[in-house]
């Protein structure tokens, strides 16, 4: 079974759930992750047909005090996302109540985001794209240029260098808290621009609480979110000269490079603070990279550093193997910097919808072989053996076209299917519904 998670963690111990990126009210999802190509060794063709598991929602139904962001009106947002977030949260209310009953101690781990007037934020013109300072591979100890460390001396050289890099970059890594979910981030400018993952940012202009490794906090806002790449930008709006790091040069990044992953797995823990992991780039593509630096929920948005101490990736998601840790390439940020800095929100995935029926190609369209029990199709009266000839008046040429037609339909929308059943011609109205049931393997006929 292949499972994909986004590495964000919900605020409370009782909070997180994994669900599909669908919304029962037809609006866009509050949080999600997009599908990524599976690593070669992750098997299970079974699930492949469904795309990949998506979306995490903190089910925490936060009190107004805990989540000042959730109810604040947003003047820049065109979609009613805060409303839909609330609604989504509400849907999971029973879970939280159930766990709350057990004890009263399930608070903590995260600092409370106290409500204070947001006086410091003034929208300015978009920040210019950062540029990587020049680097030379020859600046690094020779051990880093070898295929594999070959001796104890190599390992010692690596160790010494890694310790230096950790010491230099740590103070710029932050824990972030947005709308009750928490992740990580990294400050890349003195005035407080923070790279993060889009699924942690969620959408532009939300309130963010930043926590530095020493426990100091700062307030800020989310800027642009590129959900296609899972790249997001934030800004610390409190005034200050923030500890920051440079971004790396992806053109000089190679397969096999040693890298450091920093972040706050499980959320900010004052007793523990930041967690450092070492690994190598084991897969490198234009917009993503895979390493064997292990990640988990809460790391999302945290930085992947090269051995120059520069950010080359942002933690995004994981899969089964401990070597399956995925990071958004810094290039993805640079490519779309203008939109990120401006506060655009784009690239959200198509929602997963279905009518609960499957069939085979038929000369007149598509002959249904399976009608899912209790699916929208069955409830609308579809039966096995029905030949679907038209979809909203358009002639169907086979199952692929049927699938694609459903894909393009919004959840909740009614479609008319023309059907031939034992020489009868019928017209059936089916409501296309969001598909649920991921995670438990409970879907299927």
């Amino acid at each position, binding site marked *: 079974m292949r499972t994909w998670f986004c590495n964000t963690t919900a605020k409370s111990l009782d909070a997180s759930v994994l669900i599909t990126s669908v919304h029962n009210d037809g609006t866009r999802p509050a949080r999600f992750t997009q599908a990524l190509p599976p690593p070669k060794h992750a098997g299970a063709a*079974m699930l492949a047909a469904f795309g990949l598991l998506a979306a995490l929602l903190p089910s925490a139904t936060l009190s107004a005090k805990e989540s000042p962001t959730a109810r604040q009106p947003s003047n820049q947002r065109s979609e009613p996302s805060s409303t839909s977030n609330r609604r989504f949260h509400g849907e999971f209310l029973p879970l939280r109540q159930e766990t709350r009953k057990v*004890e009263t101690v399930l608070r903590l781990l995260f600092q409370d985001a106290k409500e204070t007037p947001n006086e410091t934020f003034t929208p300015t013109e978009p920040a210019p794209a950062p540029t990587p300072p020049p680097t030379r591979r020859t600046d690094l100890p020779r051990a880093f240029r070898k295929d594999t460390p070959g001796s104890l001396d190599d390992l010692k050289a690596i160790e010494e260098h890694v310790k230096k890099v950790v010491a230099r970059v740590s103070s710029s890594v932050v824990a972030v808290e947005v709308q009750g979910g928490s992740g990580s981030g990294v400050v890349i400018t003195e005035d407080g621009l923070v790279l993060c993952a889009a699924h942690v940012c969620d959408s532009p202009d939300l309130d963010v609480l930043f926590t530095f490794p020493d426990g100091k906090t700062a307030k800020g806002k989310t800027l642009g979110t590129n959900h296609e790449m899972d790249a997001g930008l934030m800004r610390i709006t409190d005034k200050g000269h923030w500890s920051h790091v440079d971004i790396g040069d992806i053109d000089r990044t190679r397969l096999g490079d040693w890298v450091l992953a920093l972040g706050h797995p499980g959320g900010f823990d004052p007793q523990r603070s930041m967690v450092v992991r070492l690994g*190598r780039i*084991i897969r490198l593509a234009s917009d993503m990279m895979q390493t064997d630096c292990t990640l988990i929920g809460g790391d999302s948005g945290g930085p992947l550093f090269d051995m120059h101490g520069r950010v080359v990736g942002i933690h995004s998601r994981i899969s089964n193997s*401990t070597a399956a840790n995925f990071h958004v390439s810094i290039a993805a940020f640079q490519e779309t910097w203008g939109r990120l800095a401006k506060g655009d929100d784009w690239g959200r995935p198509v929602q997963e919808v279905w009518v609960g029926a499957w069939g085979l190609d038929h000369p007149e369209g598509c002959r249904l072989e399976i009608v899912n029990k209790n*699916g929208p199709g069955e409830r609308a009266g579809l039966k096995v053996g029905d030949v679907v000839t038209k979809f909203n008046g358009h002639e169907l040429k086979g199952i692929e076209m049927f699938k694609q037609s459903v894909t393009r339909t919004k959840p909740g929308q009614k479609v008319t299917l023309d059907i031939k059943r034992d020489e009868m011609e019928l017209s059936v109205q089916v409501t296309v519904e969001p*598909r649920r049931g991921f995670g438990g393997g409970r*879907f299927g006929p």
Partner: protein
Amino acid sequence: MLPLLLIAVSVLTKTSPAQNSANRSATLGEDRFKSGALTLAAFSSATDAARHSIVRIDLDGKTVALGTVVEASGLIITKASEIKDGKLTCKLASNTEIDAELVARDDDNDVALVKIKATSLTPIKWVSEEASVGQWVVSPGTEKTPEAVGIVSVPPRKILPKRALIGVLLTNAAVAKIVEVTEGLGAEKAGLKPGDIILAVNDTKIKNRDELTATLRHFREGQTVKLRVQRETEEFDASVRMMLPKPETGFRGFNRQERMNRLGGEISQRAEGFELAVQHDTVLQPWQCGGPLLNLDGQAIGLNIARAGRVASYALPAALLAHIIDDLKAQTRKTTPDEKTEKTSPQVEPEPDK
């Protein structure tokens, strides 16, 4: 059967650019990964000596842990929670297999001593060096190359036990006042009632709800706490056994964080509750705990005590181990075989008073 027969739409089309580019990208050979065979080989000079101080501990023929020799006469320290009833044997680096016997245990730190009949084993050399973040740590087994390697992720800290509960809901009042008693947990069995105010835990006064929860956080499942309770005008003591809550479940019985934690391998049954532990990023199997954690010079700076999750393994630092081992040895001297079972099972505690 083909259970996947839905007309379903996925995000695949949307993400195909990423997929294409990823498919085009090259992949690093697995033997060059951080814990790949080629990388591990570079560490063998650090582990070569230590492996003779390590044993594999089998329980009824299945390896459940590693053990670290602390005395030439056959005393071996290991992870206590992996040593259950059954036939214990130790396999040395020389491949000799010797029957073993559990002689002492410390459940607070989850370590135990086992004894084998041997005379000239090589005890491990501990060095009380402060682990620094980013330094290599090597987890050797009985082979020439180490089992796994990693780096120190977090400096030593206390790891609280898995959250155990007394089983009450408290009001928001300034004092720790019970509003509801959870069915089936310790507080109910001890006869606590809504309206009761908790004044002290094990004779330590607590002022309010936060102090109470913070104090209780340090107790493990199965331990008993003495609560000073005020009910209307009287005060009395109640012994309450700490118990684990029902597992937290999410959507459809799905605990996401827990599941993520297990992505990529099993974790130790006992992975919380240590006085002091170094967190490192070595990907260990639960059975690889109980062995030493080495620095690049091959010196033992700690003892691997738990695989705690996808990103974390814990090791007890050598400085702490010095005390622990002394106490364990003292236990073996005091204990005659007959008393052993009783004395070495502090987990077994009297039933709380009604």
